[in-house]
């Protein structure tokens, strides 16, 4: 007897749908957790960037009026006169020696007066949440505990914050030096890492043959992307700061910055970060180049194009969006790096702008790190403001890269 067996199926559509729904909820939950974490981060930063501050002046600025001309309206010469009468001659001469007053702008002298004479001091600070929730209570506290203090709603991030240089007085401190340092460093990083990385990717994808050596190189590039950044710092210290000191300090080019006697310069920092992001750029560029359809290459070769003509006219333009995505990732990584820069010797306190690749420097993450490690409360608020600046810088650099990418990925 050859009876057809019966194949029984269970009616399980309901349970299949249920399990689908469960997974959907799980994924939704993970997204929500992520969003909550980001919101908490942002809240935390904003909470410390704005709020009521009670501050006292050692010398009331109104008392510094000269012949009835208030401080704001005084000329540079008048301001210098005020400064000279208010601080010791020794201190005045030291300022003159640091940078002659003839070379300082009116604004700089004005800042000096606030720095050395008025000396605002924050006596109490409230974060944004408290400032919004219980302003009456805060006002009462200030009136009771600090009768001479002024209470103001302060935004720690401001145009002045961006304009001012580092200062030991939190009320006067700004991120200008660090911001410029970050911009210089990232510019050098991009200039070095982008062409090198894309070039290496083109070679590995288009020219290198598939032998064990090239496979080894490819594998190792992938591994390099995962090496902790401080290792790159040590590498940078050994190569750029020490071995290539003549180059990175600018001595080789006859460029001698009196403030730097060694290779701890922006150039060293930029090149170290370039090393750090190079694997990232290579890997992404390789992926992008590999994703260019083979039919396109065939079309080009079929016309009698050489390899280079094919790469230049077809492979690269079509891979460019992907390559730029890699560059965005690289910029994001490089701009937030602290550890390698600490190792190669970024300064934590400098008050002059970097003006060449051979300048001493500090960067925003270093500045933030330095501020958060100070015991005074005020510096935490400065750090929060600096974090906002760093985020804004990061977003604007990435926006440029995204715009470029969208421009080039205009599909025909």
């Amino acid at each position, binding site marked *: 007897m050859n009876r057809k067996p019966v194949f029984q199926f269970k009616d399980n559509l309901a349970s299949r749908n249920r399990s689908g729904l469960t997974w959907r909820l799980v994924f939704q939950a993970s997204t929500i957790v992520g969003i909550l974490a980001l919101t908490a981060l942002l809240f935390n930063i904003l909470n410390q960037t704005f709020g009521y501050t009670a501050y006292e002046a050692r010398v009331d600025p109104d008392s510094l009026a000269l012949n009835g001309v208030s401080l704001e309206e005084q000329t540079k010469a008048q301001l210098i006169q005020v400064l000279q009468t208010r601080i010791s001659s020794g201190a005045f001469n030291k300022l003159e020696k640091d940078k002659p007053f003839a070379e300082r702008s009116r604004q700089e002298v004005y800042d000096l007066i606030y720095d050395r004479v008025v000396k605002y001091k924050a006596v109490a600070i409230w974060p944004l949440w408290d400032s919004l929730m219980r302003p009456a209570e805060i006002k009462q506290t200030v009136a009771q505990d600090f009768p001479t203090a002024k209470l103001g709603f302060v935004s720690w991030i401001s145009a002045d914050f961006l304009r001012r240089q580092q200062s030991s007085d939190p009320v006067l401190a700004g991120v200008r030096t660090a911001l410029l340092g970050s911009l210089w460093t990232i510019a050098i990083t991009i200039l070095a890492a982008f062409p090198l990385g894309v070039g290496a990717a083109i070679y590995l994808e288009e020219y290198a043959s598939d032998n064990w050596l090239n496979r080894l190189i490819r594998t190792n590039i992938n591994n390099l992307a995962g090496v902790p950044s401080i290792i790159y710092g040590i590498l940078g210290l050994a190569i750029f700061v020490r071995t290539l000191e003549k180059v990175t300090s600018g001595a080789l080019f006859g460029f001698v910055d009196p403030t730097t006697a060694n290779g701890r310069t922006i150039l060293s920092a930029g090149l170290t970060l370039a090393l750090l992001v190079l694997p990232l750029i290579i890997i992404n560029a390789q992926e992008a180049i590999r994703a260019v359809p083979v039919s396109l290459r065939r079309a*080009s*070769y079929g016309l*009698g194009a050489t390899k280079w003509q094919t790469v230049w006219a077809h492979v690269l333009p079509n891979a460019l969006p992907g390559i730029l995505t890699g560059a965005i990732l690289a910029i994001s990584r490089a701009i937030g790096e602290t550890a390698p820069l600490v190792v190669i010797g970024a300064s934590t306190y400098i008050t002059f702008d970097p003006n060449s690749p051979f300048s001493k420097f500090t960067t925003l993450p270093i500045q933030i790190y330095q501020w958060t490690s100070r015991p005074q409360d005020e510096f935490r608020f400065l750090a929060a403001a600096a974090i906002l600046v760093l985020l804004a810088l990061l977003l604007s650099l990435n926006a440029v890269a995204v715009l470029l990418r969208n421009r080039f990925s205009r599909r025909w």
Partner: protein
Amino acid sequence: MAQPVSSNGKYVLEVKNLSVFYGDFEAVTNVNLNIERNKITAIIGPSGCGKSTLLRALNRMNELVPGTGVSGEVLFNGQNLYASHVDPVEVRYRIGMVFQKPNPFPKSIYENIAWGARIHGYKGNMDELVEFSLRQAALWEEVKDKLDQSGLALSGGQQQRLCIARALAVQPQVILMDEPASSLDPLATLKIEELMHELKKNYTIVIVTHNMQQAARASDYTAMMMLNGGETRSGTMIEFNQTSIIFTRPKDKRTEGYVTGRFG
């Protein structure tokens, strides 16, 4: 490439004892074939018998796949394409190619045509060359008002004719077509066939096709390929003759079976 030995000979391409290898695998064995000038030669045969491999060996496109090798000779106007001093780039310039799937560059229609001419150092009037090439490919009337639009915005059949125009723009002597109509509808296919008929006045065409009617309609000569049935499963040419003979009174039983649709 050196001066053509006999650019007016009867045969543009003479394939002599050609075998093609992928690594150790011999994909095509010992093919002898003469391609006559200004004629259409079709290569037919079942899937996987090495038709496309043979075609690509005719302009050294097969070398883009790592590990390929050939033995034997392909004479182009009497000159061996596989001689050591011959640059494959030069070969592909003289012997153009149209692929199975239309693959226009993601550029404008104009640029699709102009790019090839430009890389070969064309210095004349580019507009003229673009119009001439598009007219030759019977596409001019359809695209003359949208030359700056993307080549990818055209229909499949138009894209394939754009690819033919692109190949024509560098003035090759031979055009290799690898199943150029296999992804097109019957109407577009017919257009391509009419176009081939026009083009053979100025060019020599070698076409690989799965479509028996297409070979019968469009070609002057037909080469029949088949796996040789041995251990190695290598493809070889079993019969070559005028198309009318191949389709009416083939000498080989296998050819007869294939063209009449009994197997294949």
